[in-house]
């Protein structure tokens, strides 16, 4: 399998992040093309391309756009979800640092397609330099007549606001993001009504991930056939895989959907020297863990799902045999407890309880029955919580007990964690 850099293709080109650099590399040509098309034709094209949401759920992007009622007399909104916070996920931030204009170009095309004159980029607040790059890119786009009134002389108006979050994982959930953007506590909303009907300010709204929107200019330019030449039947195109953890070369790898972790490890040099793969996440901590037995699972929506997990954000966090599974899972569980918004009972109280049990287990306290209790609590959270955060919180626990039950028991037998935390550090043997 070959890598197919498209989004990341020009990240090594000088000053790509500036408007001049972007234009030098062909930037804003797709916008010109798109503004000459009928909005409906753009939606059809994106539908036909088979582009699916890159934020985790994989919903067909063009179909989402087509849900926006046209001629309804209401304002329409495009909101870009740049609240990248899923543990292990680190693709959108480097993309925005290196190429903020590709997102803006995608925003213009998408907004035009859904008849929106106001778009927002909701970017997490803990990445100031990314916020800066976006602010500057928007200012430069306005100055160049690419945003504002009568864009590119085509009579189309669009305003774009960069909105910085303030530290809340839940705002990556699209309806929580909308509440947050409206100035409320970022808690998920009841659906229906779905955002396409009553989203931001109760108006029709499309919410897309950064990578989804950033993929649009390339599809406009490259065409449906080109896009479909990559990927698998139901998971078309290229995408960013983020490799992190105990690997020789962590980083961003852009490849056709359906590549396997084995292929990616081969391309990147593999697990760190002298160690072996123990477990990994296919798409962030909310996707059930995989082990070495899943090295050949095609990393597309269907492939990962049929192996019992989710493609998610394609955040491939690699852990070798030095990593204690209980510690890893406890830490994720603490994350979910910290980030639970508090709205619904199963997530708020469940994550609070799970952490307490896992803390005991990591310290070697408790009994094997606690594992069954953990699984039963997860059963009472999964599918019972208001949104997917609660479901995500159960993923590491249930999958880890499935694959590493004996390691949990080893903690209980030893009365303590049998692992040396130093061994798993990057600087193990250097200065620990």
């Amino acid at each position, binding site marked *: 399998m070959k890598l197919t850099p498209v989004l990341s293709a020009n990240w090594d080109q000088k000053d790509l992040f500036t408007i001049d650099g972007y234009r030098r590399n062909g930037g804003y040509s797709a916008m010109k093309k798109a503004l000459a098309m009928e909005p409906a034709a753009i939606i059809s094209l994106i539908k036909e391309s088979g582009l699916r949401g890159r934020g985790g759920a994989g919903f067909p992007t063009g179909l989402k756009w087509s849900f926006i009622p046209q001629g309804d007399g209401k304002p329409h909104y495009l909101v870009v979800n740049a609240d990248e916070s899923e543990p292990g996920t680190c693709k959108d931030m480097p993309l925005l640092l290196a190429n903020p204009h590709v997102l803006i170009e995608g925003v213009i095309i998408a907004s035009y397609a859904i008849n929106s004159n106001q778009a927002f980029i909701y970017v997490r607040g803990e990445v100031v330099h990314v916020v800066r790059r976006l602010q500057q890119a928007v200012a430069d786009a306005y100055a160049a007549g690419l945003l504002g009134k009568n864009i590119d002389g085509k009579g189309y108006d669009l305003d774009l606001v960069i909105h910085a979050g303030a530290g*809340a994982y839940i705002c990556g959930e699209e309806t929580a993001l909308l509440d947050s953007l409206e100035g409320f*506590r970022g808690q998920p909303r*009841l659906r229906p009504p779905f955002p396409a009907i009553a989203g931001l300010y109760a108006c029709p709204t499309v919410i897309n991930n950064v990578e989804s929107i950033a993929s649009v200019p390339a599809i406009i330019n490259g065409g449906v056939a080109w896009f479909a030449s990559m990927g698998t039947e139901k998971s078309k195109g290229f995408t960013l895989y983020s490799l992190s953890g105990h690997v020789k070369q962590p980083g961003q790898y852009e490849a056709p959907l359906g590549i396997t972790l084995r292929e990616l490890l081969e391309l990147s040099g593999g697990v760190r020297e002298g160690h072996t793969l123990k477990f990994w996440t296919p798409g962030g901590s909310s996707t059930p863990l995989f082990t070495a037995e899943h090295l050949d699972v095609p990393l597309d929506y269907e492939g990962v799902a049929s192996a019992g997990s989710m493609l998610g954000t394609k955040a491939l966090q690699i852990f070798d045999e030095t990593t204690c599974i209980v510690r890893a899972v406890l830490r994720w569980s603490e994350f979910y*407890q*910290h*980030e*639970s*918004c*508090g*709205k*619904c*009972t*199963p997530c*708020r*109280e*469940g*994550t*609070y*309880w799970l952490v*307490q*049990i896992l803390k005991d287990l990591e310290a070697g306290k408790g009994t094997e029955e606690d594992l069954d*209790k953990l699984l039963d*609590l997860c*059963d*009472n*959270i*999964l*599918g*019972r*919580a*208001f949104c997917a955060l609660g479901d995500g919180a159960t993923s590491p626990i249930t999958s880890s007990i499935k694959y590493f039950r004996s390691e949990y028991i080893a903690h209980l037998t030893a009365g303590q964690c049998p692992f040396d935390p130093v061994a798993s550090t990057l600087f193990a043997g250097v200065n620990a």
Partner: protein
Amino acid sequence: MTITNNTENVVAQAEMVTATIDGFEVSVPKGTLIIRAAETIGIQIPRFCDHPLLAPVGACRQCLVDVEVNGRAFPKPQASCTMPIEPGMVVKTQLSSPVAEKAQRGVMEFLLINHPLDCPVCDKGGECPLQNQAMSTGQGQTRFEGTKRTFPKPINISSQVLLDRERCILCARCTRFSEQIAGDPFISMSERGALQQVAIYEKDPFESYFSGNTIQICPVGALTGASYRFRARPFDLVSTATACEHCAAGCSMRTDVRRSKVLRRLAGDDPAVNEEWNCDKGRWAFTYATAPDRLTTPLIRNEMSGELVPASWPEAIAVAAAGLSKSRAAVLPGGRLTLEEVYTYQKFARVVLGTNDIDFRARPFSAEESAFLASHVVGSTISNADIDSADSVLLISFEAEEESPIIFLRIRKQVMKRALKVGTVAPFLTPGASKLNAMLYHSITEIESFFTNKSLILVGERAAQTPGLLSKVIEIANSSGAKIAWIPRRAGERGAIEAGAIGNLLPLGRPVSNATARVDIAAAWGIASLPSGPGLDTLEILKSAATGQIGALLIGGLDPFDLAEPAIALAALDSAFVVSLELRESEVTKRANVVFPVASVTEKSGTFLNWEGRERGFEQVLKDTTRVSDLRVLTMLAEALAAPLNLRDSVSAKAEFDSLGEWDGERTPAPSEPIVAAPTPSAGEAVLITWRMLLDLGSMQDGEANLAGTARKANVKLAAETASEIGVRDGDLVRVSTEAGSIALPLEITEMPVRVVWLPENSFGSQIRRSLRVTSGALVRIGSEA
């Protein structure tokens, strides 16, 4: 809590949807939520965040059920409080689905891990939805072995509401009520996740007029009332359905008693009037009836010492009867009586005293108002439903939130639901009016393109203080087709009008001046004739008494300082032979010749007519009382005067009133008075505008310090131009004065007309009638206090 199907569009939406719940077929109006459809066939799905009058939220997850639509099952259980029934839907609740049953049990377990085990000392214990549903849906033993979340025990979020965050299950009913219903988001969810909690902003307490409702809808003991806390166990209370005696909204209530003592009052459930809400005054202002100065025995004035001394009932009746028969007598029953009582007063006046000199109005009024009441109020059928369907609502001399809070909620509901257009004629936009998104008009004459033939004009009793205003309202209504409704402040005024406790009206709108009407009533009462001359109004009666033309006064509830001219009232009380029927010592009893202690609202039964004319009947709460009602005192007096009323009790009084029948004869003509220009103030002067705040120094709020603690702080309001004219800035003390006295309060610069000053009418630090001896519209002096 409403258990029945309370979906408001039930009647309008005839379309029915049929589905199956636990194997039983159920047909409900389209849009009905699963949880409420289940109720209709007796299936109770446990719930906490769900409340029929709040928008669905689906937060607590307690009501999860399995759902199948078109043969396709949802992969996971759904919240039945957020999902409407669809045709052919198959719902399986905890009764028939093991998955739903486990889901509910799981959620219950989660709710309980952080809940303290203090039920034995919790006010809610015994009537607690969490306790009850933990019994029905929970498991006996806990599996939680960890550390519970703890918070410092209850904190005062206002002087009357306490919050125990450990007990809170974060259903957000209270915050949603405050935001959605009351429009007072002074409490909010704070923090996040397991640390989430209900909170006020530290400097701004939860001073909503509707705060008590949050206690009532709290499904646990997290919110408790300072006045009821630790007072009783729910199972020791005896509950009686009652009606609120405070204002003309006529809220349905429940009064709870333990060992002959009223311990609390709750909002009753009456969708047509108050839904499930009431205001904090209605909820907590009841201790006036047990104040230390409550009268216990009849009193008569000792002619030698001039002191009031206790007397026996027969003795007091004899003295009173003698006094009333000796000279021309008149009757001032006041505005807070039941329909039965006020009917008895007017019958007493006409049958026993042979006079039409009776007037229930113990407040500023006008002759124009008398005509208006007779032409437009008596018999009116305008109701809350007209608010619900109005195209627009105009408030005139009526601050709904302060003067009739439940009408305020009713209007606000329509504003929120369908952006009902609201206008207010007032000097400035009050917080209450702004919560109605009201357009502000400084004068009725400046209103344009507001009315349709489905508009509603709500006129407050204060309109009588502006000459010509009521006539103008009638003119507008006649030309636009808009409806007029009059909203008095006191609970008994509409009943008094219907009963004919006013000089120009006999019962049920019969004009005194109409011979047929008089014959009608005389026949019903079995007497030869009724007095035919028009009766004097309150002010005329008092003036005549002060000058000796009237020698005796029979007085119900009356406070001279509620009247436009307290001095005349005091002079009248000093000169006439006064028979006073009262609860507590008052300015009237102090000057009375005979005082009869009467029953409070809990010690009698009866009926209020609310502003709609709707009957608000209530039962006697304290069954073992020996208190005597006004009605009983009057019948004893009548018997002593050998003119029996033939009214044994409130039941017979009501029956007689009901038997009189509607009047279909001519009505009193509408008033047609010109608008009188307001006085023109010069620099250093201003036109006074004033009204009463909901919580103030009203004597029926006595004895409830926790409630008083949430009253709005009094201030003086001026426009910026007026303030600079007299050299004061925001927050400075401003002195407002008349010949009679003065009031000094801090200034709040307000957008309002120049040389107009506003003060609260009867608040701490601002008692207009006592200090200034004037009413709204008077010219007063304003100046810097410094």
